[in-house]
């Protein structure tokens, strides 16, 4: 934990230098990987499908970005406030208390009832992850949300696939988040929720 993560210490003043570091982080290595990915896919699209399909893809991109940006801003503002306001010690105790099978079941139920799509599920996941929740619980929660989230089942599965197939898929998916959580608990990979800019700085 750095001093900035400790709510008892005031955060360091935001000097000009700090913002330059931040900008360097935001255009760090992984930004250029994403940019390269977009460039390669765009070039392929232009070569394989022709200029008409290319320009229609660009138009769709821009529309999609305009639709998504406000939600991302809202989600980040919410995540920022919660990050500062959250009584971290008590919250850590709370999520730390549920580590066994009960925790996985609770995580699955939370995933099913989470409203509001990825803009609320992922910030919530980031918060409980940084508060020290067990990795199995994190994986079980987001798997449950992705497969069984009630909003998504009602909005997409039911109208497109009908009641029978939706019910079959829902029932057969009920054990899956817990299975994923149990697998995650047994994978000894290192897991860090460090700040993105710190990860960038750590790279050579």
């Amino acid at each position: 934990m750095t001093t900035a993560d400790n709510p008892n210490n005031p955060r360091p003043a935001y000097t000009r230098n700090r913002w330059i570091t931040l900008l360097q982080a935001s255009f760090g290595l992984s930004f250029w990987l994403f940019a390269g990915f977009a460039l390669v896919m765009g070039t392929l699209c232009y070569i394989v499908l022709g200029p008409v399909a290319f320009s229609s893809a660009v138009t769709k991109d821009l529309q999609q970005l305009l639709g998504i940006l406000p939600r991302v801003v809202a989600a980040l503002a919410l995540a920022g406030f919660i990050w500062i306001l959250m009584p971290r010690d008590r919250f850590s105790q709370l999520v730390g208390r549920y580590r066994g099978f009960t925790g996985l079941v609770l995580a699955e139920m939370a995933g099913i009832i989470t409203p509001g799509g990825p803009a609320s599920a992922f910030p919530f996941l980031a918060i409980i992850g940084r508060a020290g929740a067990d990795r199995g619980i994190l994986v079980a929660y987001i798997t449950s949300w992705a497969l069984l989230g009630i909003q998504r089942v009602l909005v997409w599965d039911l109208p497109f696939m009908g009641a029978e197939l939706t019910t079959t898929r829902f029932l057969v998916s009920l054990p899956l988040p817990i299975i994923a959580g149990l697998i995650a608990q047994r994978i000894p990979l290192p897991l860090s929720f460090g700040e993105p800019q710190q990860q960038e700085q750590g790279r050579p």
Partner: protein
Amino acid sequence: MSIMMLIIYIAPILVGAYALSRRDKSFQQGLVRGLEQFTIIVPRMICALIGAEFMAMLVPTEFISQFLGTDAGMVAILIGSLAGLLVPSGPVISFSIAATFADAGASVPAIVSFITAWSLFTAHRIFIYEIPLLGLSFLRLRLISVIILPPLAGTLILIWTGMLSLAGL
């Protein structure tokens, strides 16, 4: 849907108002933190979205659909899982494809495997939310943990229907 959208916008206003009412710089700190995250996430998000949209146009979904519709049993389950992994588009296109499979007579296990795989590996979601908010180490852990779930979902249905037919139902 619109109520859900409303929640996304009202929640930060309510929590922000509470932060402001505490008069202890929580509001400013929260905003600064949000702005930091915005600066880091948005440039990557724009590139990722543009790339994913191009990729969605390049994946030959109709070609894949032939294979998913023709076979039953484990082969269809595996092809369905793979197809769901490769379709990087949003729910409209993915569920349209799934509905087309159903109409074309694809087996229920294959369709369920397809939807499961797509739900777990949606590229947009990974690029926009998961990598920025949770980082690559979590993405790696999650992908390893869920990779067997799409074929498992289809196989569970196969086993279940097999048991029903054994019981004479």
